[in-house]
C-alpha cells in the first residue's frame, strides 16, 4: 500500500512563483534542479533528471506505475511535489541495481516471469522493496496488499506474488548471513 509520508512538510520559506532551485537526493546523489514549485517529483525525475524508469500512466495517483521510495516508504511520485522532497532520501528503480548487479527482488522478477509488458514493473518492484525492507517475513496477504496500489493491466499478479515471496526468502538469508557474520 502506498501513501504520502506524514513527515514531508512544505518548507517554511515560500518560494516561487516561477522556477526555483530545488535540491534533491536521488539514489544517493545530490542534484540541484531549477524547476517550478508545482513540478511533481515524477516529472522532475523523468524530464529534469532523465530517469525514465518511473512511468507516467495516470498522473493522478490511481495506478502506482510511478511508485518510488522516500525515506524507505513507497510513495506515488505523481502525487508528490519535487520541492516537498528536499532533505529526504529518494530511491528510484534506477538506484535499486548497480550496473548488471540486480537486487534480489529484480532477480526474482526475472526468475518468476513477474511481468509481461513491463510498464508497471518499476512501481511493483519499489512497492515490494518498501515492504521487504520494513517487513522481512510478509504473509501472502501482506504481499498482495503491498502491491494492491500497483495496477498490472497484463495481469501478471500471480507471478508478482511468487517473485515477492522468493525475494523475501533471499532478503532473509542475506540478513541472517550478515548477522552471523558468515
Amino acid at each position, binding site marked *: 500500500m502506498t501513501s504520502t509520508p506524514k513527515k514531508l512538510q512544505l518548507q517554511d520559506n515560500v518560494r516561487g512563483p516561477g522556477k526555483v532551485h530545488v535540491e534533491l537526493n536521488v539514489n544517493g546523489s545530490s542534484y540541484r534542479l531549477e524547476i517550478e514549485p508545482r513540478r511533481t517529483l515524477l516529472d522532475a525525475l523523468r524530464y529534469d533528471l532523465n530517469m525514465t524508469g518511473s*512511468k507516467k500512466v495516470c498522473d493522478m495517483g*490511481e495506478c502506482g506505475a510511478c511508485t518510488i521510495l522516500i525515506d524507505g516508504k513507497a510513495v506515488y511520485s505523481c502525487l508528490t511535489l519535487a520541492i516537498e522532497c528536499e532533505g529526504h532520501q529518494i530511491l528510484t528503480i534506477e538506484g535499486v541495481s548497480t550496473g548488471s548487479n540486480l537486487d534480489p527482488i*529484480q532477480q526474482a522478477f526475472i526468475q*518468476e516471469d513477474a511481468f509481461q*509488458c*513491463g*510498464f508497471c514493473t518499476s512501481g511493483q518492484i519499489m512497492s515490494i522493496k518498501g515492504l521487504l525492507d520494513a517487513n522481512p517475513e510478509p504473509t501472502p496477504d501482506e504481499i*498482495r496488499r503491498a502491491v*494492491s496500489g500497483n495496477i498490472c493491466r497484463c495481469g501478471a499478479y500471480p507471478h508478482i506474488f511468487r517473485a515477492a515471496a522468493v525475494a523475501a526468502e533471499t532478503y532473509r538469508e542475506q540478513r541472517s548471513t550478515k548477522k552471523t557474520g558468515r
Partner: protein
Amino acid sequence: MAKLVKSKVEWEGHVFERSSVTEGEEPEAWTAGSTLKVVGKGQPRIDGPERVSGRAKYTSDIQLPGMLYAQILRSPHPRARIKHLDVNKAIVFPGVRAVLSHINVPNISFDNEPLFGEELRFAGDEVAALAADNDDIACEALKLIEVEYEVLPFVVDAEDHEFLDNQNAQIGENLTLGKPVIYKRGDHSKGFREADVIVEETFHTQSAMHNCLETHGAVAVWNGDELTVWESTQSIFHVQEELTDVFHLPLNKIRVICEYMGGGFGSKQSTGKWSIIAALLAREANRPVQLMLDRLEENLGTGNRAPTVQHLKLGAKSDGTLTAIELQATVNVGAYGSVGRAVDGPCQVMYACPNVHTEVRSVFTNTGPQRSFRGPGYVEGAFPLESLMDELARRLKMDPLDIRMRNYAVGDSRTGQKYSAKNLDKCYQNGAEAIGWVKGQSVSRKDATKVRGFGMASQTWGGGGGPPAFAWVKLNTDGTAEVITGSQDIGTGTRTVFAQIAAEELGLEPDQIGVRIGDTAHAPYDPVSWGSMTVSSVGPAVRQAAIDARKQLNEIIGGFLNVPADKVLVQEGKIYLAGEEKPHASINDVLGQIGNFTILGKGARGPNNPELAVRTFGAQFAEVEVNTLTGEVNVLRLITVHDCGRIINHLGASNQGEGAIIQGIGYALTEERITDKATGIILNTNLEDYMVPTALDFGDIDCAFINDPDVIANNLGVKGIGESALIPTAPAIANAIAQAIGIRFLSLPITRAKIVEALQKTGNAGGVFP
C-alpha cells in the same frame, strides 16, 4: 530459394487467402517424440534485466535533443460542426512551435476521412494539435485555441431506435456496410420445430476499455526527407505503411521503431492519428516531437470493446442435442468506419449444430470508435452462448459438462473441414478433475450470507498463424547468434521464445542468442502482433532461418576441415565430427580464420495445410462465493485448461493465460465504460472510476495446457495462447453465480449493485435478471 505460394490464414475469426513467398524446403515439424533441449522449458526472459531495471526504453521514454511536446484539442461534444476556429493566439504564444487544424492541413486523410474533420463525431474527436517547448506550454496554449461549435443531434446507444430510425449518426447510413452480416447453415426454423425444448434470452454486454498502461503515442523526427517514428504499436510495418500513404514517401525513407511497448491488447494493432500528427508537427517545426496521449484521451479515442445486444435462441432434443441456434446481434461500433467482428463466431463453431442462423448489425453511434480487444467478438459472443447452454442443461436436468460433450464438434461446421487437432474433451476432463467438479453439484453455504457455486464454460479461438512472416539468423564469428525479425514484443515474451527456437536448432543456450525486433529498417517484414499468432507465424520462420544458418556453417566447417558437411555437428559453440566424442575445434577457430565471414540464414513461414482447420480450444472452471448481503463476488478459484499445441515457454504461457483470465474477471464483474446519455460524454475515463482488477480482486488462478504439438499447424507444432483464456472467463463466472444464488444475469458486468437488486427482487425464488 524464394517460392510463391498461396495459403489460407485465419485471423480473429475470419479466414482469407493470400499469396506469400517462402524460403526453401519446409523443415519437418517437431513432433511429440522430438527430443528438445531448450524448447518446452520455463525460460526466464532474455530481456528481463532491461525490464526490471528501468533501462528498457518505451516510446514515452524517448527523449531527443530539442524535442517538442504535443497536445491535441478534442471535441467536448459527441457531435458538432466547427463553425469557427481561431488558432492565432496559440500560434503566437511563447514556446509554441507548430499548430495544426483543418485550416492548414486540409488535404491529409486518415482512413478515407480528413485528418482534422470539420464535423466531429464523438466526444474526444480531434479538433487541432500543437507542439511546444515543453508540456506545460503546450497545455496552456491549447486553452488559447478558440472554437465555436454548432452542436448537432447525437446518439450513443445502438438501441436508440427513435434516433437511429430517423436520422444518421454520421455521414452515410447508420448500419456499417449498409446491411447486417448474415450467416446460415441448414434450416433453423425446421430445427426449432424439431426441438423438444427451446430457450431464449436477450443479453447485453458492455463496452470495456483497454487501458494499456502505456498510452498510445509516437515520437517523430525528420532528417531531410527521411522520417523516423517511435511508436507504441503492435505493428511497426502497419505504421510504416500508413505513414508512406500519408506522406507519399517510399518505404526506404520511413523507419518505425518499437523496441518496448507497454501493452496493446488489440488497441495498438491498427494505426492512429497520433503518429501522423506527430510527424506533421515535427515537419512543421523542424524539431523532434513527442505526442503521448494522457489517460483521459486514451479512454476517449483509442478504442474499446464494442457494446452488444444479443438475442439468442437455442433448440435441443430432450437428450441435449442441439437442433437449432439463432442469434440476432446489434453491435455499437462507435464513430467512423469500424466494423463489429466475430460476435457470431461462437454460435457458428463452438458446437456441432446442423441448423444455425446468425445476423449481426453493426451500428454507428457518436461514441469512440471500437477496436479489437483481446479475443474480439468471441469474448462478447461466448457470454450469451455459454450462459444459455447452462440454462438448457438446467431445463433438461443435465450436467453442464454433459450437454457440451453431447454437442462436441469434430470439425469446423462452417467449412466441413476436420480439425488438425482437438483435445477439448481432455480440457474438460482435466479441468473438472482439478476443480473437483461433481455432477449435479449442490450449493454449499459457508454461512448465512455467503454462498458458493461452481460454473464452467468452453472456448474456441484461432491462433494458427500463417504467412507472410520472415526471419533472419546471423551467426557471429564467436559462435553466438542473432535472430533478426520485424516482429514486436507486446509483452508476451517474443524475444525469449525466438531465442529458444533458434538455440534449439543451433545447439546454443538462449542467452547466447540476441534477438533484434521492432525496427523496420533492419529486419524483414513480419505481421501485426494480433490474433494470438506471433509465435505460430514468425516462430516457424525463425526455426527455418536457424536451420539455414546451421547448414551454411556446417558446409563451411566441412570445407575447412575437409570432411563432408553432414559429418559436422555444432553444439554450444564447439565442433564435433561424426564418430568422435571430443570436440574437434571451436566455431571461432574456423570462422575467425576465414576473414570474419558472417553467416546469414533466411526463413519464411510456409503455407497452411489447405485441407484441415487449425484452432485452439479450452475449458474454464470457476468457483465463486457470493455475499448475499453486499453483492460481493469473490472468485475463489479459476482453473483453465487449454489446447493450443506445443508450449515453447511454460513460464510465459502460464503468464499469458492467467493475465487473460484476470482481464476476464474485470470484464465479468467490474469493467464498464459509462456514457452519459444526456450529454454523450464518458464519465469514467480514469483508473479510479473504471475498475480494472487489482491484486486483491481474485483468488487462486491455475492455467494448464494439454501441450500436444499440432504437427499440421506448422513446423513447431505451436498455436496461440494470448487471447483465448479471456473468452470463457465471464460465462464461467456467470454460471457459477447462477448456481450459487439461482439468478441468471443477462448483462455484464455483474456488479454488486445488480446482484443486490436481483436478490431483493427475486428473493429465494431465483430467475433471470436483465
